[in-house]
């Protein structure tokens, strides 16, 4: 697994790279801004790029722009955006553009090596990864006629993992269920919430997040 890291915070970047190397991941480039990143991606062709959303010079959306540029020139490259804040809409705008191989993680969650490596592998394989905090925040919302009320606690757990971008197989492993059981849970959840079956994983994530964000 070959990874490139872009973050202008040197301390954070060193820590992140250190952790990745320890986990046996090859870090082919570490850079501090978007231009350097795009050049590094061209020369080293990594499998996955981890990009801080806020980078110099304006510290606004340089990371997002760089991600879009990389996706255009090398559509196979997986992109994980690192954010300081939980912003569901940013995660969703990412999903609605892409074709998979995309992740959105909070910076304070990447310090967990197992979760980080898991995310990198999933994104490298074309999956979608959404930080659990984003999903948790949306699930906390109380609604007037809440369709989530009609879900069993087991179904809610499955829904949360779906929203994080996990495949049926992964959900099954997490919850110690058979894949067949998970499939039937997923079918029931989607019909209770009125969501159509989506072909791609990342489309399914998008549909679920959209549903969770709506206040009706």
């Amino acid at each position, binding site marked *: 697994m070959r990874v490139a890291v872009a973050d202008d*915070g040197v*301390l*954070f970047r*060193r*820590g*992140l790279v*250190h*952790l990745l190397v*320890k986990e046996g991941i090859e870090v082919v480039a570490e850079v501090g801004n978007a231009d350097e990143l795009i050049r590094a991606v061209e020369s080293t062709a990594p499998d996955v790029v981890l990009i801080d959303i*806020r980078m110099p010079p304006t*510290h*606004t*959306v340089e990371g997002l722009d760089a991600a879009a540029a990389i996706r255009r020139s090398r559509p196979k490259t997986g992109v994980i955006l690192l954010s*300081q*804040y*939980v*912003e*569901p*809409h*940013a995660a969703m705008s990412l999903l609605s553009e892409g074709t998979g191989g995309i992740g959105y993680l909070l*910076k*304070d969650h990447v*310090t*967990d*090596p197992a979760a980080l490596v898991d995310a990198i592998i999933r994104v490298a394989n074309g999956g979608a990864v959404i930080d659990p905090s984003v999903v948790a*925040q*949306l699930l*906390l*919302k*109380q*609604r*007037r006629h809440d369709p989530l009320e009609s879900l069993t606690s087991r179904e809610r757990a499955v829904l949360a993992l779906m929203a994080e971008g996990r495949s049926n197989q992964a959900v099954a492993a997490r919850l110690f269920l058979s894949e067949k059981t998970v499939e039937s849970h997923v079918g029931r959840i989607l019909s209770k919430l009125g969501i159509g079956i989506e072909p791609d994983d990342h489309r399914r994530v998008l549909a679920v997040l959209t549903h969770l*964000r709506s*206040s*009706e």
Partner: protein
Amino acid sequence: MTGRDVGMVGLATVWVVWATGAEVVSIRAGVIENHVLDFAVGATYLLAGLIALRRRPSNRLGWLMVTVAFVWYIGNYGNTEVPAAVSMGAAFGGVSLSLVVWLFFAYPSGRLQTRAEQVYVAAFVTWQLVLGVVIALTFDPRATCAACVQGGLALFPSAVTVARMEGIDNVLAVALPFLGGMLFALKHRRASAVERRALLPLWIGGALLVASFAVDAFIGGDPGQGRAEYTLVQLENLARMAVPLCFIWALLRSNLDRGGVGDLIERLSGPIPTGGLRDAMSDVLRDPNLRLWLPVAGGWVDEAGASIPHRELTPGSGISRIDRAGRTLAVIRHDPAIDRRLIDAAGAATAMALDNARLHAELRTRLEEVRASRARIVEATDAERRRIERDLHDGAQQRLLAVSFRLRAAQRQTEAADSVRSDLAEAEDELRGAIEELRNLARGIHPVILTDEGLGPALDSLADRAPMPVRITSTLDGRLPPPIEAAAYFVVAEGLTNAARYAGTPVDVTVDVCGGRCVLRVRDNGPGGADRARGSGLRGLADRVEAVDGWLTIQSPSGAGTTLTAEFPCE
């Protein structure tokens, strides 16, 4: 009665004797002309001249008109049997015409305004005098009429010289009126609107005079012969009266204008809208371009409170101060031709209103300053908040995350004891809590998403984090000015916080951008009964909204929910 008045009565008396004598001479000599009109021409010049001398002693017009009143009759005395008078009459009868031309161009200031006018008038007067002297020295009436007496001053009688001079005079009689008309047209073009109104009778008189000369030159007959010639001379006389009549008319009108000042007082007794004072003055002084400024601390402003550089108000022609009790109440820029006394009268009538307007303008200026300074304070606060957030993000948060990496790495050291590992895990949990708190603190200080992506996404983010459903309906398109976005964001944030605390029901947020205004509503269906005094939060919020020229209201009838409404300008 002052010495000047005595002098004038004396002058008038002398004139009456002189003019009456002239008419008696003409009648006895059987001159065919309207003697009453001939007398009236001189009389109007004398009357207007005396009035001018009395009211505007420094103006040359008075003396010029009085001079014309006398010179006018020299020709009449040429009809006597006294030889010297015959010569004088023949020679200088025409001089009064050049003086009338002078008056035409000198009206109303008494001075000739351009070089061309000065040359023209000087040439005209000089020619008349030269012609007079030459004629006096050479003209002998007996050459053409046997019954006539000898010209007393004709020391060198020469019929040829007289004929030549008359020939030149005939050519000039065509050229000079033509030139004069052109110069007068230029004078008219130069004049202001007020001056043009005053010049109108002169135009009519001048046109009559030029026309009659033209016809005269064309017919070229003897004076006093024939019906047409007679009518022409009477017309000429009427035209000559244009200047004095004009002068008297202008005086009458300025008296009428001052009557208008009375209306001004009445007009200003009611409430005056902003700019109303200028309009009223402009009407009374009949100057549509009049401008008015009021003194405030440190400068000059118009009625709306907009300031003007001091150098534009240097007193001079067309700029007048209106003073009262040693204090300047206002400065007006006006048509330089407006009578100073009329301006003073209007100023006196408007003094009270001017003082009021000055106070209002000063208040408006102060308000504008306060508004600007409040906006600056909010802007500075926002900039400071952005800086603190950036510092937290780039500094403390990054360091804590780096520590978090180290702790994680340490935990994975396989050789570490279990007790050490669990201590490290606890420390890592604590650290994660600290990072979380720091992050929320930074967001509370300044929401990054607002500066990065604008109001729409920032409101979505607020709605996402709210513990209850929030429905956002928005016509927002693109970005608004940063201070407006910040104010709008904090209104919605505060509205949602209050709704979560007191209502706990779903909330509707609407953002309506229309016609340069942005209206924001946060509505819940809770118990209501909130008021603006409830917390310092709402007061501070109102200050923030008002600092960007907006306003904030809260409607919270008991049992009917709470609606927070804010409106901003958002061009």
